[in-house]
């Protein structure tokens, strides 16, 4: 399988600020690749570099085997882009913008355009200044999806869309994958990337810190276990691979690494186990581990027992 996007050690600086600090990213042909990271991690910068809108300060990058800085026109005939922050000309209608972008792209399918308008429930006769954020997003999405590009670069494409429209969007992405097209989908919405992506890359502070299929990333992280027992055993938090133990009455909850599951189960069984719920790790957990952010899920002390990702596995 060939790679559509190849980035090796890419550096991008804005003055003194280093936005990308040796970023490696590969997107294989025909896959939907989720590009996950919090705000300011460098997702949009990465996409703009891939579009030749920014110039890299180091490393190498190629899209479809071409240099995006030099071969803009050739490359862009084969790709479609939806910006993260869609700005439209206030005095043009949505329909006019879709047609303009389509023509600049090198042609779009009129039947497909009309289908998409229906699917996303967009009134193309409204002036862009009257559109809400979600509707502006739809204009850009329709313009991109109505083309027959090989590669789609989508920067947080569902921001502002309601759940119904998000669903329509997911349908479109699955369709693209069935047609063998490549999608690079940046997002901070975990469920979206989880539902759509074949592979994921996680970016933090300008570096890809983890990349691989979802299953592979999942097994690296912890399972969330909640159990009701007759007598609460002592020393659970001392077991290797068991973290964030919280005891509330007879209820115990903990975050468990794969290596800690067996010893924990033995201890819980011995303590008289009534009920047990275990949840597969969500991407939220991945984030928590990579960014070390505390939320209500993880007590304040968790940060100290939260080593860097290299210690896991």
């Amino acid at each position, binding site marked *: 399988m060939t790679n559509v996007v190849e980035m090796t050690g890419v550096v991008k600086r804005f003055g003194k600020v280093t936005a990308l600090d040796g970023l490696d990213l590969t997107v294989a042909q025909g896959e939907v690749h989720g590009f996950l990271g919090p705000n300011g991690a460098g997702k949009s910068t990465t996409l703009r570099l891939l579009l030749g809108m920014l110039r890299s300060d180091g490393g190498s990058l190629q899209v479809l085997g071409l240099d995006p800085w030099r071969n803009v026109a050739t490359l*862009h005939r084969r790709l479609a882009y939806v910006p993260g922050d869609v700005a439209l000309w206030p005095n043009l209608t949505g329909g006019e913008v879709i047609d303009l972008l389509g023509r600049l792209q090198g042609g779009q399918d009129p039947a497909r355009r009309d289908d998409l308008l229906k699917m996303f429930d967009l009134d193309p006769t409204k002036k862009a200044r009257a559109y809400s954020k979600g509707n502006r997003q739809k204009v850009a999405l329709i313009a991109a999806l109505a083309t027959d590009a090989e590669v789609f*670069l989508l920067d947080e494409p569902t921001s502002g869309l309601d759940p119904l429209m998000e669903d329509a969007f997911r349908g479109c992405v699955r369709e693209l994958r069935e047609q063998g097209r490549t999608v690079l989908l940046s997002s901070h919405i975990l469920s979206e990337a989880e539902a759509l992506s074949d592979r994921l890359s996680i970016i933090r502070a300008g570096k890809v810190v983890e990349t691989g299929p979802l299953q592979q990333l999942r097994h690296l992280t912890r399972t969330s276990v909640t159990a009701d027992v007759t007598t609460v055993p002592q020393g659970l938090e001392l077991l290797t691979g068991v973290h964030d133990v919280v005891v509330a009455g007879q209820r115990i909850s903990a975050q468990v690494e794969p290596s800690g599951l067996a010893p924990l189960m033995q201890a819980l069984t011995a303590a008289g186990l009534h009920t047990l719920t275990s949840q597969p790790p969500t991407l939220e957990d991945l984030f928590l581990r990579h960014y070390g952010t505390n939320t209500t899920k993880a007590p304040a002390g968790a940060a100290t027992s939260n080593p860097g990702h290299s210690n896991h596995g």
Partner: protein
Amino acid sequence: MGETLAGTGTLVRLGLRRDRWLLSLWILGFAAMAGSSASAGAGLFPDVASRIAAAETINATASMVALFGRVYDPTSLGALSMIKYTAFMTAVLAVLMVFVTIRHTRADEESGQLELLSGGRLGRNAPLAAALVISFGASLVLGLASGGALAATGLPAAGSFAFGLGWAATGMAFSAVAGLGAQLTTSARAATGLGVIVIAITYVLRAVGDLAQPGPSALSWLSPIGWNQQIRAYAGDNWWVLFLPLALCAALVPVTFFLRARRDLGAGLGEQRPGPAHGSLQGVWDLAVRLQFRMLAAWAVAVVLFGVVIGSLAGNVSQFLTSPNSQDLMKKLGGAQALTDAFMAAEIAIMGILAAAYGLGAVNHLRSEETAGHTEALLGTATTRARWATSHYVAALGGVALLMLLTGLSVGVGAGLALHDGSQVGRITLASLAQIPAAWVITSMALAIFGWAPRLTTAVWGLLVVFIALGEFGVLWNAPQWLMDLSPFQHSPLLPVGSGGVVSLVALIVTACVLAALGYAGWSRRDLTA
């Protein structure tokens, strides 16, 4: 009232914080310019006889009267020294105040910044009130500082403050006009354009009024810029005239608040109509033309009106010169035809500068499209950077050329009718077209700045003002020749256009090409920025 004005103070502080450099520089600049001109005048006209001679020459020269107005007391040093500042620089000041007012009203509304703020404890009228407080306050400070600077040079204090307060009141009047304009349009660009058109009309009104014999006619009294001249600082100090611009403010401001109360945030006065579901724009060229068309159409109408008025004055020019003194002067200058030509040449040169300003504004679409995020959407398609930049650049060049062609034709037809001489159309059009290359240099300069220093694109306006000032005041300031030669307008051939101008025209076109190439080079290697 308290409910709708809540938060005005906060917004005023925010506005002053955002504009602290802009406003300080303009205020200092105007005060320094006034003061330096007054001291230069004292050196140039040391005695009463020299003043009378200079003042009579100005009053007898139609192009000077049309541009700057009359010296109402030939013996007054102040009236003579400040003649170029009474109408001309007042119009520049008015443009500044329109710009500042729109920046804090419609521009914030259009960009959505006001929506963000309106979520807070902010009354509906607060943004407009804050904008007016800022621009009224800036006008007043500018006027007082200039009055002080003038008085410091030794000119009579009363005249100095009459002059300064004249600037202040005129600045306020045009701030009020801009505030009203901001309620009518939905885009800041259109609102600014509206304000500039009003300034241009009032300028022409007073030009025509001042040219009447014995001037000024009622037309001058219809124009706020005319009022500023009729204060006659240092030549009688008609303080009561200051009430006219203030009365205009008092009339316009309530209407503005009334209109604001009738409309939604972000809306203009007209209602939103649905547009076409399918677009006919074929590409970036169509888009550039579509984005620039309205502005160009407005300019074209203004240019034709201005041109016909100026042209029709051609017959009057030599009639000014009735005194034996000026008859003598006329002979020295080459007879009636030469005087008429000098008048037309001066007016056409001004139109050339205005066309350059249009070209500059049109090229700056590149930057405003980039910061608005529109460029990102376009460059995400198969459009190349060069192609997109060319669309706006060439549309700007074409607009400049069209405006100068219209200038030539309208002035020519006006003059032809006034002088019963059809041959005027051809030679005046030729003279008008000869101004295009200099305007293209300015247009290309804007492209070069866009390529290399995109954040400085608005500073090109400052450069344009410097060039204009060098042309108008360079001699007065004793500026060295090389400095004055930096201005492209210095090299435009004037009426009657002979073959001698060809070399400088070619040089100007080459300069424009070099600047454009520089601009493309910069644009092709820089990041897209917001």
